[in-house]
């Protein structure tokens, strides 16, 4: 870059900053946030909230969430635009928002944006990332699993990651482990999951390799007794993840058939 260009940019930079301060600018937003969707025998709820208005309450505005649901094969089921009042929130029940014909497994995406392009209100918040939780339950309310936001669309690839979960699970108290993986990228992803006993013996148990379609999902299940995990602590690990934070959602099933869950 020539010195003339550099000097010109240096001269214009304060003017640009000044203009940015006085001109309206809609909310600056990060990529859509992703959570797994479970249908069929499960119920899924998402908790969208107009959080910019709570952090800037004297200049609160409505916001819009652009949401979409994808099936396990990566096909888009539907998308919607939801408006949320200042200080408001919305419990998204997918069967009410997208219709009753939903897949058993998939991926939900949400991205917050300004309701108006002519607002000064939220400049000081910087770039905001959609912030919502997922609640998974069974249809008889015997089980509850609450999970924080999982990852962003098209985050950095985790294709070559050797990942180990920080959760130590007690095989003596569980009957089954279910892992849900989503692939929030535009390319097919390969991932291999396995279980490892905690301690010196790092033998891989129950290896489950597979591909996950672009914008799709897969579900992997282990009956712990079938693979010899009937006592002691163990953890889940992976070779390759769709993105660096696309760790699986785990559903830990107890002896009575109920479950809870976590972002591994």
């Amino acid at each position, binding site marked *: 870059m020539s010195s003339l260009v550099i000097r010109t940019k240096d001269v214009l930079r304060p003017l640009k900053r000044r203009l940015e301060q006085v001109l309206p600018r809609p909310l600056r937003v990060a990529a859509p946030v992703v959570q797994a969707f479970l249908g069929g025998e499960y119920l899924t709820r998402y*908790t969208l909230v107009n959080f910019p208005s709570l952090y800037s309450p004297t200049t609160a505005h409505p916001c819009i969430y652009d949401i979409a649901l994808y099936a396990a094969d990566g096909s888009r089921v539907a998308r919607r635009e939801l408006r949320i009042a200042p200080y408001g929130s919305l419990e998204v029940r997918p069967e009410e928002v997208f219709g009753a014909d939903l897949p058993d497994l998939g991926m939900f995406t949400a991205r917050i944006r300004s309701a108006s392009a002519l607002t000064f209100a939220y400049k000081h918040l910087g770039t905001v990332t959609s912030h919502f939780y997922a609640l998974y339950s069974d249809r008889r309310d015997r089980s509850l699993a609450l999970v924080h936001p999982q990852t962003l669309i098209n985050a950095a690839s985790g294709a070559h990651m050797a990942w180990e979960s920080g959760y130590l699970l007690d095989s003596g108290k569980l009957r089954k482990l279910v892992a849900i993986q989503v692939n929030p990228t535009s390319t097919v992803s390969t991932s291999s999951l396995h279980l490892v006993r905690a301690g010196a013996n790092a033998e891989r148990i129950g290896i489950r390799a597979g591909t996950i379609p672009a914008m799709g999902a897969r579900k992997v299940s282990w009956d712990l007794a079938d693979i010899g995990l009937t006592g002691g602590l163990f953890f889940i690990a992976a070779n390759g993840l769709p993105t660096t934070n696309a760790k699986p959602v785990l559903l830990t099933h107890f002896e009575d058939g109920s479950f809870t869950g976590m972002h591994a």
Partner: protein
Amino acid sequence: MQGQFIFSTCAAAGLRMRALLRNGARGGEPVMAGADTSEMKVSLKVFHAGVLEYESASFASIPYGDHAEVSDDTCPILTDRRKEYLLIAHCRRGEGDQYFAQEHQLTYETSAGGRSTSLIYDQLPVASGKTNAILLLSPKAWVSHDVDTFICVANIGNPRSDGVAGSSWQIEFLEQSGVIIHALSLDLAQNGSHFIDVKRELQGRFELSRQPKMLTVVARGATVGAVILTFLVNRKTQAVALEHSLSPHYYMNGDFSRVRREAFLFPRPEGAAS
């Protein structure tokens, strides 16, 4: 290097706590070449309502890749389920006093047994004594005839200038329309755990139904450190779920001094309890 893991027994929610203190790579990341893989030494303090009731200067020495358990099996004072305890595990690894990130695991079991829920989160820096405004946004409270939500604030606080140990917090409960249906002002004890039973707080203010309804709980306070956990419990089926609250740094990156200043201007409803 050092850090402190802050957690509560949550006996008031009818739960039994088991903590696994870990010494290893954080977040599943591979061990980096040259990483400190030395033993982690743990001292433990147990408080009830701000009073130190148990202290062990050498509670555990954990080899790299291993863990140590904190529960009523390893710390007998915790067998008293009538008391709500706040625990601080001070973890040291290697040389120096700078902070090192390390996740630890909490597991809570229902008193009836058989059900449990787990969570991992990072230890915090050892408090500098500087009080900061803290904001909680909890868009994950549900209530119904059977379902209740408990929010546990484990507050390490600091003595206020008037000599009273504690910190002042404002808490609002918002329905999905954005209307504030209840507000509280609380003075939280230093080194104390405080439980907010959402269903009990909303009694007579919010119509319960068979189907759980979602609410948002917003809290503002000043402290040197707090850990805030949200439990979702179905009293009828004994189902239990747990999550922590993510700091605003996870979902915005702007001017946090201004964010903190302005967030405290949140309107309070007329006649709010204080």
